[in-house]
């Protein structure tokens, strides 16, 4: 917060080029080239991103003047198709109850057959040698983790990219699949990589699209079986 004082209005327009750029970026007056340069800065330069957020907050009081307009229903239909109609098995407890599964089958004999092979492999818990990865972070938090899961060894490796664990607390990793409550995968954090053995019941949950989250818990982890502290990093599992 101390650097915020330096960009106060007393500095005048010449005094802080970045603050003026952030204002122009949020207002939207810049041309395409300048906008893309600054969009990149927002992603890579936390101090600049903060200036942008401040200007967004400052000018957001003008948002009231935008009148609501109901979009045509076709937009939501198209959106759902783009987001959820892909042949991937995610967020479902039971493949047999899954609409995605049946759609997959109907896509065609080839795809259907492939899906069946994969599903039968998963069902009997045979290794299929897949690697899944998730990058976990949250805005305004410094903690960052990368998780890597190998289906054939059922081992989850998690690296702390940044973020120090408070001395009297622990970071706990959770897997969240569909509407189910989070299941603990164990404690993480500290220096270097950490390998976690995934229990048999949770192995089947590791598919693309499920969510991993890290929460801040009392030392030794949550005693309730559910996250009790704030979630400090979240990421979606992807195939690589």
């Amino acid at each position, binding site marked *: 917060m101390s650097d915020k004082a330096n960009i106060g209005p007393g500095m005048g327009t010449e005094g802080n080029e970045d603050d003026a750029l952030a204002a*122009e970026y949020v207002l939207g007056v810049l041309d395409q080239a300048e906008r893309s340069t600054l969009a990149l800065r927002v992603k890579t330069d936390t101090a600049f991103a903060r200036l942008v957020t401040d200007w967004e*907050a400052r*000018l957001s009081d003008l948002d*009231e003047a935008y009148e609501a*307009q109901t979009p*045509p229903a076709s937009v939501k239909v198209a*959106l759902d198709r*783009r987001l959820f109609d892909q042949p991937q098995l995610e967020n479902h407890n039971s493949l047999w109850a899954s609409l995605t599964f049946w759609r997959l089958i109907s896509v065609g004999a080839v795809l259907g057959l492939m899906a069946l092979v994969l599903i039968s492999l998963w069902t009997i818990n045979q290794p299929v040698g897949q690697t899944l990865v998730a990058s976990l972070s949250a805005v305004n938090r410094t903690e960052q983790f990368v998780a890597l899961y190998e289906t054939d060894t059922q081992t989850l490796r998690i690296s702390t990219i940044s973020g120090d664990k408070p001395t009297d607390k622990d970071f706990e990793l959770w897997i969240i699949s569909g509407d189910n409550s989070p299941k603990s995968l164990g404690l993480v954090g500290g220096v270097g990589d950490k390998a976690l053995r995934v229990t048999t019941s949770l192995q089947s949950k590791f598919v693309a699209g499920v969510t991993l989250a890290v929460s801040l818990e009392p030392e030794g982890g949550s005693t309730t079986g559910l996250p009790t502290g704030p979630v400090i990093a979240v990421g979606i599992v992807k195939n690589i």
Partner: protein
Amino acid sequence: MPTPNDITGLLARVALGDRQAFDLLYQKTSAKLFGVSLRLLKDRTEAEDVLQEVYIKVWQRADRFNQSDASPMSWLIAITRNHAIDRIRARKTVTADIEEIAELADKAPTPEANVIAGSDRRKINECLEQLEKVKSSAVRGAYMEGYSYQELSDRYKIPLNTVRTWLRRSLAKLKECLSE
């Protein structure tokens, strides 16, 4: 309009991949965001495209919104404005119709609207009123309609660099006034 708490809760659930929450979020927020997109782009097809892009981003990146100090609606509108303005700037030719700009730029909200909108909104309007009229309507025009420096320069027949200098000064004054 839904309360910020509703939207924050929905965003948290969306971050965890909850589709029901996503549907509800869309139901509660899409009209406002479509209004933003349409006002900026002034083209229904493009505005619909942008609305889709925004919700795709929200589905994939809802985890980026946590208990930051931004209100969830401001966060969503900021994403929408960004997408819409990027799209305007990517258009091949600048089709600034001077008369249309002049007409839209004067659409300052009525005093009644200000009362309804509450104290913050009054504050920014008070601060804008302390600027010269031409400058406050340039700020409004840029924010609400997505005008570029180039368009403002054409509109006010002032060299681009001059527009940039006075708009920057106006923004600095606005910031000072808002922090009082």
